[in-house]
């Protein structure tokens, strides 16, 4: 019987909502394409969080109504988005200067693996990948003031994504501060992950059983 049968892992929406809860008003935040993009939907509009999309949009708003699409306005995931009141446009080079210069308070990326030392692998699954595609992941991981990762705790085949040492090609060294998985919220401490929260019904012992990297309870 798997540990996952004895607890209630978070759904994708619950994971996104959980991350959203930790983003304070006034932060400038970049959400990686894929699952992290959903986080924006769980930040209430009255809590002003300013979302950045690396293709030159600062103050990105939610998807437009079907009859109000601006066809020149997409996000980094190439979906139609809107611009919030107060938002602005910039070119790619200014947009990545903003990222590289450490001006974003937070970036949330998806990942294949995160290591106990904060290394992240999220762009390529093998060294001989045909046509690897990195996009802006390395710039975001190296440049943002604070990097969080949102990912499933386990791969489809049941392997731990929180590892002692990444085996996939790295995106950045020692960049991750915190991981939000469907089983837990964990801080990177350098040697082992500090578990801040677990899914209902889960114990540290059970969580450690499915996690390659060493764990300890956060104090």
């Amino acid at each position, binding site marked *: 019987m798997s540990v996952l049968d004895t607890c209630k892992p978070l759904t994708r929406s619950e994971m996104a909502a959980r991350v959203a809860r930790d983003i304070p008003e006034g932060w400038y935040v970049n959400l990686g394409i894929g699952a992290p993009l959903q986080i924006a939907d769980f930040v209430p509009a009255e809590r002003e969080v300013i979302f950045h999309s690396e293709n030159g949009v600062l103050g990105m708003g939610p998807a437009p109504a079907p009859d109000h699409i*601006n066809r020149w306005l997409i996000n980094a995931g190439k979906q*139609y988005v809107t611009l919030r009141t107060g938002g602005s446009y*910039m070119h790619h080079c200014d947009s990545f200067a903003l990222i*590289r210069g450490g001006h974003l308070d937070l970036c949330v990326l998806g990942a294949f693996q995160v290591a106990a030392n904060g290394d992240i692998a999220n762009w390529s699954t093998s060294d001989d990948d*045909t046509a690897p*595609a*990195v996009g802006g992941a390395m*710039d975001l991981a190296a440049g943002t003031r604070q990097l969080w990762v949102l990912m499933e705790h386990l791969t489809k085949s049941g392997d731990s994504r929180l590892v002692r040492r990444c085996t996939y090609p790295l995106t*950045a060294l020692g960049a991750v501060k915190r991981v939000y998985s469907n089983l837990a919220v964990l801080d990177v401490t350098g040697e082992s992950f500090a578990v801040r929260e677990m899914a209902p019904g889960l114990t540290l012992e059970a969580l450690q059983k499915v996690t390659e990297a060493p764990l300890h309870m956060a104090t």
Partner: protein
Amino acid sequence: MINKIVQSMAEAMTGIRDGAVVLLGGFGSIGQPNALIEGLIEQGATDLTVVSNNAGTGRTGLARLLELGRVRKIICSYPRSAGSVVFEEIYRAGEIELEIVPQGTLSERMRAAGAGIPAFFTATAVGTKLAAGKEERDIAGRKYLLEEALAGDVALIEAWEADRWGNLTYRSSARNFNPVMATAAALTIAQTQHIVELGALDPEKIITPGIYVKRVLQVPYGEPTVT
């Protein structure tokens, strides 16, 4: 009188030579100079090095240029997207050279070329396989890579409005790579939806001043479709 507006695609494409490094604006299909890419296909230059964030989708535009065997090398950050079938075919067949560059490093390398900076240090890609062969240096306690300027012989870009001096504005996120590519190439050619009288553009709002633009061709195609 300065007049950078050209009347035909043939005129716009004059002088693009075999072996040229061609910068292609756009991110996804937004701000992408589709008409100019078709013009380049027609024009015939081959053995090209293409710099573009993506590697084309479907079988038109950049994908068509690739399929015709006209591109020797592509420099991009994200060649793999839904529909990048042509690129994947020829890449697997070993028919094209690929240089993967992180998106921010890609734009900064072109900015450097346009700004007279031959090389700069960045923390992006330190410790990754994209650092292979690059000089690494410790500066104030952090590791950085030395990245070189990336200049184009030609840039093909898309604008929203243009005047006869070549001043350009863009629309929303269609700005993307276009302004930086305009600065990085010896011959920058812009397609534009609108041509306006000199003086009609607000001097505070011009994003690309005409000094960076050699030719302007009006291509009023209406709304883009995301592919």
